[in-house]
């Protein structure tokens, strides 16, 4: 596997980060990535499939993108459906069609160009495949599916139909991530040799509680059963059920493990994980997982650690840290967690600062202090920051990229095949933790 992307320049990054560019400039079009051909039109007619929490997040991000017409909303919960219709009406001034059933929507609606799929994970694959086969381009939330077979079916459907299928790993279109990869890691080899990666998403126990709902608005049991839910609790909290999702390593971890694989350009050779239900004892999925991935890259071996905790927010929030012989880049969707540290033995970065690739941070604290033994410690690395920031909702650049690709003006940054190649190792984390055994990842594990 070779994961490639387009190049973002320093000027592009600063311009994009300031929100000063048109959506069409977000990406170039590398040959291996996918773009629709000759489908430019004034309006893209969109169906919103699933209007729960993530559907609302995507809709809010899309409301900033010109040239979209939201033609239909589909959700099995009348509460979500009414909300979606009202939000669309408020945005575009007229009422979209509403559906509880996607098959009815696809059979009825004419002229749709694209679908935004934000249903529960176990519906991603069936819904995406249906939409692709109906001739629609699809943006589907990650994780691609709750099973690797479901994800494989999505890749096959994309390639069979020739339609676009973007997977919602939105960091792939984030100028901060793209600048860091293209200009700092690849362009200037700022890390030297990357030897280790450390990533985490630590979420407070108070933020990991079951999602509540007003029982007066509950969906009828027969409707829940028709769509694969045993009850309303499962409908609201599908992320905690093994048959419906991959759990925290999928919900939260997939975003960041995707960055490991994207930045290194290769999948891991093995995975070894441990997890437990140490706080939320009745949940089917682990409430905390710790994972080690081993990579072989052209520069040498890389060992990566990732943890997802739904029991504490301590430890610095969520970030990915690429640790090299000359620098460590700690990057996050939040700028507050993003810093670059230069090893004292690395070549000077004054030139990168003067050319605007980096900003120097305030002086680092001295390594020596009264409670430290000087001979045990290395010199503190100097801290630097990126020169710009993202001024849009985090999902907006990824959606802009999708719609630009629909118009034939860009290539997708995360089509289903590339997403699969990056996601495939994640499907083996829970099996490793359950079996308490490392898994050597072969072509059988990782290929479509």
């Amino acid at each position, binding site marked *: 596997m070779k994961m490639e992307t387009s190049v973002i320049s320093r000027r592009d990054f600063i311009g994009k980060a300031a929100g000063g560019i048109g959506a069409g400039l977000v990406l170039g079009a590398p040959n291996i990535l996918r773009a629709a051909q000759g489908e430019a039109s004034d309006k893209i007619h969109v169906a919103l499939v699933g209007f729960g929490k993530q559907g609302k997040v995507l809709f809010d991000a899309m409301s900033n993108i010109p040239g979209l017409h939201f033609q239909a909303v589909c959700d099995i919960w009348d509460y979500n459906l009414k*909300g979606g219709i*009202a939000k669309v009406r408020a945005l575009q001034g007229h009422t979209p069609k509403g559906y509880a059933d996607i098959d009815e929507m696809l059979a009825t609606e004419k002229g749709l160009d694209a679908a935004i799929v934000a249903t529960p994970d176990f519906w991603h694959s069936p819904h995406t495949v249906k939409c692709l086969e109906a001739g629609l381009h699809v943006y589907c939330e990650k994780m691609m599916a709750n099973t690797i077979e479901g994800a494989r079916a999505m890749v096959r459907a994309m390639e069979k139909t020739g339609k676009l299928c973007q997977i919602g790993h939105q960091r792939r279109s984030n100028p901060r991530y793209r600048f860091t990869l293209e200009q700092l890691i690849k362009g200037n080899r700022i890390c030297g040799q990357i030897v280790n990666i450390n990533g985490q*998403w630590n979420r407070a126990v*108070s*933020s990991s*509680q079951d999602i*509540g709902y*007003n029982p007066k608005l509950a969906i009828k049991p027969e409707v829940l059963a028709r769509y694969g839910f045993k009850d309303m609790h499962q409908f*609201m909290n599908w992320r905690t059920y093994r048959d419906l999702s991959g759990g925290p390593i999928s919900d939260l971890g997939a975003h960041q493990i995707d960055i490991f694989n994207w930045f290194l350009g290769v999948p891991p050779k093995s995975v070894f994980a441990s997890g437990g239900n140490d706080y939320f004892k009745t949940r089917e999925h682990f409430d905390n997982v710790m994972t080690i991935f081993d990579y072989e890259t052209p520069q040498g071996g890389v060992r990566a650690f990732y943890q997802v905790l739904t029991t504490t927010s301590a430890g610095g929030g*969520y970030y990915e840290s690429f640790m090299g012989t000359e620098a460590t880049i700690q990057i996050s969707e939040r700028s507050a967690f993003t810093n670059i540290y230069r090893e004292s033995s690395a070549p000077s970065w004054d030139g990168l600062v003067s050319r605007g690739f980096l900003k120097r941070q305030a002086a680092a604290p001295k390594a020596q202090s009264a409670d430290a033994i000087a001979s045990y410690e290395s010199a503190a690395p100097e801290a630097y920051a990126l020169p710009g920031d993202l001024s849009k909702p985090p999902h907006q650049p990824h959606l802009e990229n999708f719609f630009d690709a629909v118009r034939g003006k860009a290539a997708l940054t995360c089509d289903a095949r590339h997403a699969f190649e990056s996601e495939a190792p994640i499907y083996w984390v829970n099996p490793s933790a359950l079996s308490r055994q490392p898994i050597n990842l072969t072509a059988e594990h990782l290929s479509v």
Partner: protein
Amino acid sequence: MKKQHIASTVFTIAALVLSSCGKKPPQDSTDAGASSAPTSGVPLSTELPPELIEGTPKPMDVPNLVQAPVKAPELLVPEGTTLISQGKPVTGSEESPLIGELSMVTDGDKQAGEGYYVELSSGTQWVQIDLGQSAEVAAVWVWHFHSQKRAYNDVVIQVSDDAEFKTGVSTIYNNDYDDSSKLGKGSDSPYVESRFGMLVDAKGAKGRYVRLHSQGNTSDEMNHYIEVEVYGKTL
């Protein structure tokens, strides 16, 4: 904001030193909850909803932001004060909210999950409670949204006998520090939502109608209400 942070840092260091000496440090005074503290009357209380936080909070870049309280706000109100808003009709700047019904504002249900809140569009929006007759308002207790830590922008609460709020308007709370809603500049502090709600001392403001304004929040551009309780005595 900067001044508050510096003060907070100094306090923390001082607390460490004091703790090490075995002395009890002063209580942190940054808790949100009650907007002021009268010295006479009877304590006001209400049934508080359970905490139910979802997901990772978004950054809140708001100056002078008061953090969420860790206990219920306290306020003394005149004896004989009662809840006078429950079940009373609610109107709004939008007849049809995006999510929920305006009647949820006074339905007595303060829970945080789906189906308990009303959502109005972006921009400056308001909800208005008709108390049925003029009242001497002792306090207004408001829960915008507490399943995620967030702060609502430009919260302005007013009382009037004029349903149009053109005359005789008493503003009992205003944290629109830059007057972006064009209702006048306020000096109250923005605050982080919590299950404890924001309890505002209305100081006996008189009026039949209570109107609450906001202009989006730190997580999205929308305006939300779970519950508003008006306490006082009808005239």
